[in-house]
């Protein structure tokens, strides 16, 4: 048995070697996809890229994008660029592109007709600077979801809520049953993300854009946003006992039924999938917190630093094609729980939650998200404020809103 197995491996190895052309190029790809669902998804890209005869050298950086981005940026500015790197497209890599450190893919995009394929078109616009395309969007991620554990609500003897207000109302019942109503990791990006989700859901995209796009301090300090901070105050009370750091640990609490729900982007879906849970039966997802079913079309994109080595530059092009290919898009996004960037792929195998997302996308109910609208500097200030807010009960919603308005007023 063992003998036969090793022979099969050997045969597969020979077959694999035979398909590899003479010039296999190693290309290092850095990203921050390290949770179970994410790692499974990125392995699909690696497989597809290896099939072209090149070699994907995985450069995963653990500890969320906040930790990974400084490493990536200092490698690029410090003259040790990788072959390709993940960023959230939008303003994170803006200055690197302006300084001419990134490679432009306008030609390849024209050849493969990206503009016709990518839906919604804002994705490609976020990759474009002065008419040139600098990145390859790979997925659409939307933040505006709440994930609910059906088991937790069954244990507490209340029906699974249909929107945020019902969720808040169910909080005491959950607490009585020994559950943590709202699971939330104690990292700043998760806390300010939750605030933005609440804002988009409660006041709607229009006011959201007035705050983040027009940077109106008056609106940010006004009565509309006051409702949002009131909701954030509820959220912080519901999450007071949540003692985890990473988002996937919080998701694990929802999966295990120890927590009622979690406000998190659709990447949380991959975790439910890895745990073998079924949407609708084991867990429930509410886009836009059940109040305002609009999804943001942020997401991840790959940027390609300029390299001197012509071999590697060629491999970069091959990778860009692979990332955009139908097969890779489907395989990757199914594992990751995100939506594909191509409008023409078949996702019949998608689960209920992804289908909800696809429907919203098809109906054109999309909006811009903070990654595209505000600079990393403003994001950091917001993160600081929200992490203070969520851990300091004495900081009132009003005081926090006043400081929020100040940050928005000074934003660029």
């Amino acid at each position, binding site marked *: 048995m063992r003998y036969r197995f090793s022979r099969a491996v050997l045969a597969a190895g020979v077959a694999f070697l035979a398909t590899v052309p003479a010039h296999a190029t190693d290309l290092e790809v850095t990203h921050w996809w390290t949770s179970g669902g994410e790692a499974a998804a990125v392995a699909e890209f690696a497989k597809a890229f290896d099939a072209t005869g090149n070699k994907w050298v995985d450069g995963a950086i653990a500890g969320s994008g906040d930790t990974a981005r400084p490493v990536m940026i200092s490698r690029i500015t410090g003259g040790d660029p990788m072959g390709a790197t993940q960023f959230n497209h939008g303003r994170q890599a803006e200055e690197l592109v302006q300084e001419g450190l990134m490679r432009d893919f306008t030609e390849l995009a024209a050849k493969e007709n990206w503009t016709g394929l990518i839906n919604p078109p804002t994705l490609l616009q976020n990759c474009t600077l002065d008419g040139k395309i600098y990145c390859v969007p790979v997925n659409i991620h939307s933040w505006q979801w709440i994930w609910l554990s059906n088991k937790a609500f069954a244990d507490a003897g209340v029906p699974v809520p249909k929107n945020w207000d019902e969720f808040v109302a169910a909080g005491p019942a959950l607490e009585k049953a020994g559950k943590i109503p709202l699971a939330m990791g104690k990292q700043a990006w998760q806390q300010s993300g939750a605030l933005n989700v609440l804002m988009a859901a409660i006041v709607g995209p229009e006011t959201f854009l007035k705050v983040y796009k027009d940077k109106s301090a008056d609106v940010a300090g006004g009565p509309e946003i006051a409702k949002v901070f009131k909701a954030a105050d509820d959220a912080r009370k519901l999450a007071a006992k949540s003692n985890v750091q990473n988002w996937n640990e919080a998701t694990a609490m929802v999966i295990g039924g120890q927590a009622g729900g979690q406000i998190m982007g659709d990447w949380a879906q991959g975790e439910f999938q890895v745990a073998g849970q079924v949407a609708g039966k084991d867990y429930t997802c509410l886009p836009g917190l059940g109040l305002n079913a609009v999804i943001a079309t942020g997401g991840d994109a790959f940027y390609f630093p300029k390299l001197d080595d012509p071999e590697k530059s060629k491999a970069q092009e091959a990778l860009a094609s692979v990332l955009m290919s139908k097969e890779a898009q489907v395989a990757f996004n199914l594992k990751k729980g995100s939506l594909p960037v191509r409008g023409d792929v078949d996702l019949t195998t998608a689960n209920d939650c992804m289908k909800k997302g696809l429907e919203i996308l098809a109906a054109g109910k999309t909006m811009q998200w903070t990654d595209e609208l505000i600079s990393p500097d403003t994001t950091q200030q917001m993160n600081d404020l929200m992490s*203070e*807010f969520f*851990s300091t009960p004495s900081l009132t919603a009003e005081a926090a809103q006043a400081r929020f308005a100040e940050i928005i007023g000074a934003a660029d």
Partner: protein
Amino acid sequence: MADRTRPSGLFKNVNAKIASIPMILTALCVFLGGTLWTVVYSFTDSKLLPRLRFVGLDQYERLWSAPRWLVSIENLAVYGVLSLILSLVIGFVLAALLDQKIRFENTFRTIFLYPFALSFVVTGLVWQWILNPQFGIQHIVRSLGFESFTFDPLYNADIVMYGILIAGLWQGTGLVMCLMLAGLRGIDEDIWKAARVDGIPMWKTYLFIVIPMMRPVFITTLVIITSGIVKLYDLVVAQTGGGPGNASEVPAKYVYEFMFRAQNLGQGFAASTMMLLSVAIIIIPWAYLEFGGKRRG
């Protein structure tokens, strides 16, 4: 030979001077040059990449109105003062106890010095676990039967800095003890004998005779401890990550995060310039007293 002019001061010990040229250049270019560069760019609006577009004192105004920076300064002050005093006192007392010609001195010295062999990151993680209410001290005491016992400094914004201080002291006092012990061993045995003949009690001998004689050791120790305080960063990152909220933020962390996470070099440079300034405010008067006085005398 008599008509030859005296060689000028410049060529005295010429070999030694040539040998120190690399270090002089390093000091000038890297330390001084880097410092000046940072200060200059702290007056610009540099974002991800340095850019010479001056905005006056804007970065400083923003810095001093940022609640997080003010918290950082306050935390560093609390940590700094307590850590300085406590590590000197504990270190000296431990050294004095070891100096009583006790048995197994080597063993004790090794035990006390061992934490110093660990990096701040490891120290931080170890103490994060010890102070974690679910696994650490609180859990142990509760399982002994004291159900209402609460000890979770890292999760309480009011006392989180003391949780970090404990870890810092655990790591650092061993070294202070060793330095002090070396200082104590350097005191001539005859001084002790003379004090005993005069009937001076032991604590008085330590306080009024031995400690003043150990002045150089104290200065060395002081420099080592203070430099450790100002650059406090990795311990906080490993232990609390600045949390809960921003209750244990420190200036070095502010600098790092604004330079690299927020992509706002100007703000980070302004913060690091303030750190330099605060060090200079302490060092310059001291150096003046220490070295300036001697030349006059």
